[in-house]
């Protein structure tokens, strides 16, 4: 039975939710504001919140100095393809674990997740040497494979959780109606799990977009994505905070816009199965 909520309680809940939301969003807001300041205003103490001289100079400098389009295109290709490739492998894997589990399914799932607990730097040299041998250094193909592999455990876990919520009887009925395995996956399971699959795709796209360790270490010029673009504006000797903020804003803008337009789908997917 639903609990009745008093107007006062509702106001309190809304205020708390907004406060938490603003707190989480504040670093991004501050970065965006700083990107429109002069370098002098960017380091002012106490910090200037709104009463500063707005300028687009930092964006002009960044666009002049760097080939933003190339970094952006690399990010789209690397994050997009690694996510799609990951899903192509993860959907059948999660299906088999959810609907045809074996004695070892739980162990396999845990083992897959445990690979995420290994510090990435621990395997940097072996991967780097493999990339040299295969000629994959500074290539988008190499990064697509690496990012797909490091995000695969999360994709499988998420999809497995969503698939477990779908009654197996529906799939059995489809089989009794003569559906092949491919038809069962494509026309029965996938449409029912669309919210879950969509949120998995989005989350993994965001993870791949923001991944900085491998993208910085395995690229130089040709395949460098937006993480390398941001790194090129960070400096321990020189006050370039406004330019760094402009570069950061340009790097996160596409993913922020994507998140904004897909938030309904994302929330629906993340809460999929939470309420029966």
């Amino acid at each position, binding site marked *: 039975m639903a609990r009745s909520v008093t107007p006062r309680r509702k106001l309190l809940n809304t205020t708390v939710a907004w406060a938490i939301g603003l707190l989480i969003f504040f670093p991004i807001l501050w970065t965006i504001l700083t990107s429109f300041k002069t*370098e*002098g205003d960017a*380091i*002012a*103490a106490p910090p200037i919140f709104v009463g500063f001289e707005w300028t687009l100079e930092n964006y002009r400098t960044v666009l002049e*100095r760097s080939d933003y389009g190339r970094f952006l295109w690399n990010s789209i*290709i690397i994050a997009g*393809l690694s996510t799609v490739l990951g899903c192509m492998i993860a959907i059948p894997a999660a299906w088999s674990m959810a609907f045809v589990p074996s004695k070892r399914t739980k162990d396999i799932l845990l083992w897959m997740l445990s690979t995420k607990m290994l510090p990435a730097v621990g395997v*940097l*040299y072996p991967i*780097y*040497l493999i990339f*040299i041998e295969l000629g994959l*250094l*500074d*290539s*988008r*193909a190499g990064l*697509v494979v690496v990012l797909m592999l490091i995000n695969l455990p999360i994709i499988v876990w998420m999809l497995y959780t969503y698939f477990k919520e779908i009654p197996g009887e529906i799939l059995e009925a489809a089989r009794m109606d003569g559906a092949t395995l491919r038809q069962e996956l494509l026309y029965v399971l996938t449409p029912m799990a669309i919210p879950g699959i969509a949120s998995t795709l989005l989350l993994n796209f965001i993870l791949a977009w923001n991944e900085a360790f491998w993208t*910085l*270490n395995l690229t*130089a*010029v*040709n*395949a*460098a994505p937006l993480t*390398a673009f941001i*790194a*090129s*504006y*960070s*400096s*321990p*000797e*020189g*006050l*370039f905070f406004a330019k760094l903020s402009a570069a950061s804003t340009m790097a996160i803008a596409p993913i922020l816009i994507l998140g904004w337009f897909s938030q309904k789908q994302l929330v629906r997917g993340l809460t999929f199965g939470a309420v029966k």
Partner: protein
Amino acid sequence: MSLKSTLRAATALSLITAGSAFADGHSATITIATVNNGDMIRMQGYTDGFTAETGIAVEWVTLEENVLRQRVTTDITTNGGQFDIMTIGMYETPIWGANDWLVPLNDLSAEYDAADILPAMAGGLSHDGTLYAAPFYGESSMIMYRTDLMEAAGLEMPEAPSWSFIAKAAREMTDRENDINGICLRGKAGWGEGGAFITAMSNSFGARWFDEEWNAQFDTREWSDTLNFYKNMMDDAGPAGFATNGFNENLSLFNQGKCGMWIDATVAASFVTGDDSTVADSVGFALAPDNGMGKRSNWLWAWALAIPAGTQQVDEAKQFIEWATGKGYIEQVAANEGWANVPPGARTSLYENPNYQAVPFAQMTLDSILSANPNDSTVDPSPYVGVQFAAIPEFAGIATEVSQEFSAAYAGQQSIEEALEKAQAITNEAMEAAGYR
């Protein structure tokens, strides 16, 4: 999915991911990994001229200093061949040169005039007398101080002050009510941040990292004196939270008029007298302090261009190095942007140029560089080369840990004695594991 569809998808993936391999139309393209600072960024703006002269295109990979160090170290140790030129410092050059990871630069052209490179820089970028990296710019450290505050305190800064004068001046200039700190110094953990400062300072107090048998020396009175002097002075006259301040934090404080003195890289002189500084008209310069023991507390560093042994384009890379670190580049920058903006600290001829001598901080920068000797940086003999570091591969890791202990002591999380005890244990353990002891 049918076999045909799979093949189509795979072909599309290959075309998309491999597309950029065919994008370049130049006959030769060199890739340079570099650090993000004002002088390096300025150089990138001039490379079109180099390409027009030689037909060699240049691709830049610009990274933050620590990321760059990790990136180029991974590449050179695996012979990855990702870069034709790497921007490295005085710490890496002798170590990498000794391992034959770098191409020797002893055969640069006569017009380049390698003999013009400042001897201190050439010495720090060589191994066994062979030059392995050409300095793009060099720096030492010196005192930058507010002349107006010094005058108001009734003091006069000597050209070569002692630590006791600096401590006295710092306390006199401190005005907590008006948010003015007598002195701003690095305290941030990291071998290149607070670690570099305290090591250079310790040299002037007679301390050293290792004795001649590579035993750690943090249990000596000299180290205790260094850290106690630093902490007492900073507690009395430093900014709040100095234990987490590095170059940028202190630059920001100084430019806002919140520091009476700042001892840091000579390259900062152009920042504190530049447009972003609110105190540009009242800045004076002096040599880093000493303690009457024959060694000053200034460091020596250079950002230099080196050619990794794995590159296939040695000749093109050498052409670029001659262009970027030669006299012509300095003249080009001076003509376009003024003498105060040329890369300092690399060439003797720059300091003989009357136009450059007119720049307010030029002479003090040169004097600071000349007073640092990486081959004889400590009062008592030591087995290592380097002023603010020991040029051994293990140093960066050890010094980062040690500086973390020191920063914790500055912040009051432990005593100086505890920090030194831990530093001694960390260092001896690491040196034993590495086979030095």
